[in-house]
Every structure is written in structure tokens, then in C-alpha cells.
């Protein structure tokens, strides 16, 4: 089998470029998402933005706009639902997000709708447009710059928010910037990986590298590499095995997470077993 075969088709070249661009940014960014314990909010937003995507698909406007609007609506719904203290914010979020997912499916499954629900839910890296690629490149560039500029405040707040405050760093402002980046990342990445699978690229690589590196910067660089490699592996696997591309990429990312956890577990057990000097 020709190793370069996927590269010979323009479709697959674009898919590879998409997963590398998304992986490089989302992999690095995911380290902050997990550090700030935003995995569940991120998943909620990713699933809750489905109605935005469906409405955009039905109306024939760019899906990116639908994604942005969908994230905004989902964030609002989660915030409003979470205000009832008797229910608890995690339960309220679950209800709001399931409701939005249901609404999105309902809209997408009307008889006269174009049959694209599958693609919106599970993503289709092979179907990315030039516009999607441009958006992913813009995200990688602008988001990457934002991560560089925010690196020290993020680290200070992650270590201790109270201490950061006395250094003149507002934890609220830093968290807000993080959420804004998260919304942007989801709106862009959902084009390639779909509403249900997009979280894999944010969380998987961060889990894979956690505990293996001595600084946040190194963890982020490693997570970016892991995400890009897993993305490429997923595209290749789908080309060779004829599996769905989005799902293959998501599985490769999760396999990386599992592998990282496994190595961590083995290393931890070995350290515990070896006699201390």
C-alpha cells in the first residue's frame, strides 16, 4: 500500500491540513481547558451548539456563523438554567444541553431538510471547504497568539487565583478570556469533527500528556504534537480501512489519551515499587 496515497487526493490533503491545524491549537489549548476543569462546560457547549449549525445548514448560510451563534445560545441557556440553585448547575446544564441537542435533531430531521445531520453530529473532515480551512488557520494563528500572550496570567491563576489577584491579575478576566477562546475553538473545530466528537481534540491530547512534563508550556507543545499526529493517524486509518473520517480521528485522539494514562499508571506503579534511595 502506498503510504502517500491519501496525499494524492486534494480532498484528503485538505482533511490532513484541517486536522493538523485544529490539532495544533486545540491540543495546546486543551491543557488549559482541563487545568481549569472546563471539560464538562466545553462538552455542554459543543453539544448545545447543534441547533445553530442546523439552522445555518437549513438557511444555507456559512456553518461557521451557525456555530458561533450556537455557542452563544448554548452558553446563555446553560447560564440561565443554572440560576435555579434548587436544581444545581450540573443538572441544569445537562437538561439544557439535552434539550438543545433534541431541538437540533428535530430541526434536522424534518422531511424537507437536506440530510446533513450525520455530518453535523459526527463531523466530516473529508468535506472541509476552503473556508473551513481558512477558519482553522485563523484560529491556529490568532488563538496561538492569544495563548502566548495569556500564558503567564493563565499559569498564575491556575496555581492560585487568590495569589494572582494580589499580583494585579483578575481571575475573572482570565477565566472570561479562556471561555471566549473556548467558544471560538468549538465554533471552528466543530466544522471538521462535529458536535459530538469535537471534544476529543480538546480533551484527548491534554489527558495524554498530563503528568508527563515539567512545565505547562512543554505540556502544551507535546499536546499539540499528539493532537496533530493523532489527527493524521485518524485520516490515514479512515482512508485505509474505509471508516468514517471524523470518528476515526476522534478515536485516534482518545486512544492517545488512553495510552498516556496507561504509561502514567505504569510509571506511577514502578516509582511506588522501587525502594526509595
Amino acid at each position: 500500500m502506498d503510504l502517500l496515497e491519501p496525499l494524492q487526493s486534494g480532498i484528503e490533503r485538505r482533511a490532513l491540513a484541517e486536522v493538523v491545524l485544529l490539532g495544533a491549537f486545540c491540543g495546546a489549548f486543551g491543557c488549559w481547558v482541563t487545568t481549569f476543569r472546563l471539560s464538562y462546560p466545553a462538552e455542554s457547549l459543543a453539544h448545545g451548539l447543534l441547533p445553530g449549525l442546523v439552522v445555518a445548514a437549513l438557511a444555507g448560510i456559512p456553518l461557521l456563523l451557525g456555530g458561533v451563534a450556537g455557542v452563544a445560545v448554548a452558553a446563555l441557556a446553560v447560564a440561565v438554567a443554572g440560576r435555579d440553585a434548587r436544581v444545581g448547575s450540573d443538572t441544569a446544564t445537562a437538561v439544557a444541553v439535552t434539550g438543545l441537542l433534541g431541538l437540533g435533531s428535530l430541526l434536522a430531521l424534518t422531511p424537507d431538510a437536506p440530510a446533513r445531520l450525520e455530518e453535523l453530529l459526527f463531523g466530516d473532515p473529508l468535506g472541509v471547504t476552503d473556508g473551513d480551512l481558512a477558519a482553522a488557520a485563523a484560529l491556529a494563528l490568532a488563538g496561538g497568539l492569544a495563548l502566548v500572550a495569556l500564558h503567564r496570567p493563565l499559569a498564575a491563576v491556575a496555581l492560585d487565583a487568590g495569589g494572582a489577584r494580589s499580583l494585579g491579575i483578575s481571575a475573572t478576566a482570565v477565566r472570561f478570556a479562556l471561555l471566549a477562546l473556548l467558544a471560538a475553538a468549538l465554533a471552528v473545530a466543530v466544522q471538521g469533527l462535529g458536535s459530538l466528537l469535537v471534544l476529543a481534540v480538546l480533551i484527548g491530547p491534554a489527558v495524554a500528556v498530563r503528568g508527563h512534563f515539567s512545565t505547562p508550556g512543554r505540556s502544551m507543545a507535546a499536546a499539540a504534537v499528539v493532537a496533530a499526529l493523532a489527527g493524521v493517524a485518524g485520516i490515514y486509518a479512515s482512508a485505509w480501512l474505509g471508516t468514517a473520517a471524523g470518528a476515526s480521528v476522534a478515536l485516534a485522539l482518545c486512544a492517545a489519551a488512553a495510552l498516556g494514562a496507561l504509561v502514567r499508571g505504569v510509571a506511577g506503579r514502578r516509582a511506588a515499587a522501587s525502594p526509595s534511595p
Partner: protein
Amino acid sequence: MTAAVAASGLAVAYGGGRPALERVEFELAAGSSLCVLGPNGGGKTTLFRALTGELAPLRGTVSVAGGRPAYLAQTERTRLDFPVSALDVALMGSLANGRWWLPARRSDRATARAALDRVGLADRAGDRFGELSGGQRQRVLLARAIVQDARVLLLDEPLAGVDPASAERIERLFGELRDEGRALLVSTHDVDSARAFDRVLCVNHDQIAFGAPADVLSREVLERTYGAEIVVLDEPGPDGTVRAVTVQHHHHDH
């Protein structure tokens, strides 16, 4: 000359309830040190939080000259699983210069190293912060406050959990910081150590006394500050003030 730190008619409350601290009235000049004494719940931390601006005064005023004060909180709430070295944490102090979007400069690094050295942790600079002991972490956070290069330092029980040798070193450091022209506020439960400060402030919900150690550290003031928690030793200390220990930190043989 204007004071580096001042409080006037200060009352501070949490939520809507009755004030946790009232009638606080003191001034501290630059280049001098203040020891804040009081029992558990006396209002030491509350005073510091009013001085950082975290709690707004219910009544009265506070003023802190020379920009944002450095603040070492009593209870550290750091994430121990976050991968940073002791040096990285000390270096965070340089964020106070306002240019948070720029990477740390080489000179900031040198300052952070020097600060770790001043708290006696030069040899632990490269160690994972989360893998240091509680007392060592407290000293790294003190180093971070020093790197901040503030005119006013608010240190809330900085020596709690610090071993005697390190505590001695850090008490010397207090003197150096004061001699650099900074104003230093340090809370403690160690009545004996208060003697080394220029001023002592005793609080127990109300301000009990403020002044030079020789004037403030009397049996009467200490009993009003600590109530039943104090053991006043009858024998006068070397400078004529009474010697006393608080019960929960009873470490004197007699």
C-alpha cells in the same frame, strides 16, 4: 510625611452582619514594621483583606501608599498538581509590573532566584512546587511576594509551619525589607517575636492597642487581647516588657 499604611475609624464586615473588626486607627511610616497580634478570629486576616482592597470598609478609611501591596495569604490554596517549579512560582511575582503579556525577562529571573535565596530555598529552585513541604511552599510564596517589589508587604502569619532555623532567617529578612524603605505588616501568634517590630497592633474584634512594643506589650493589653488564651509570665523580659505566650502556641519551658 504621609504614612505608608493608614487606617482611620475602620470597621469591616462580612456580608450584612455585625462588623468582624471595628475602631481600627493606626499609621505606619515607610521603612518601618508592624506586628499584628490577636487571637483566632480577632480580625488580623480581615484587616489585611481590607488593606488589599478585597473587603471594602463598612466605615472609616484605609490607605496604602505606593501602589498595590504584596500580600501573603494565611491559607495557601495552591493547586499542587499544576506543573511549575519553585522558581516559576517566585517569578510570578514579576507579573505585578503590569506587563503580563510579555515573557519574563532575564533580570526578573535573577530577581526570583535572589528571592528564593533570601528565604533559604536557593537549592530548591528547580523542584516541583507541588512536591515541596508545606513550610517550603509558604517560603516560596513569600519569595513571590518579595519579587513583587512592593512598597508595602502584608504577610499573614508567614511563619506558621516554618521551622525555627528558617523562621530566624526570615525574621532577619523582615529587617532587611524594612531597611530597604518598605512598610511591613506581619501577623503572628508569637507574642515574643513582636518585640522585634517597630510597632505592635493588638486586635480582638476591636483595636486594643497600637504603639511601640515597649508601650503595648503590657500584661493588661495582652489579657484584653487574648482573654483566657494568654499566659502572662510574671518575670519581666530583658527590655522590661512582660513576657507572655498564647496557650495554643505554648512552647516555653518555665
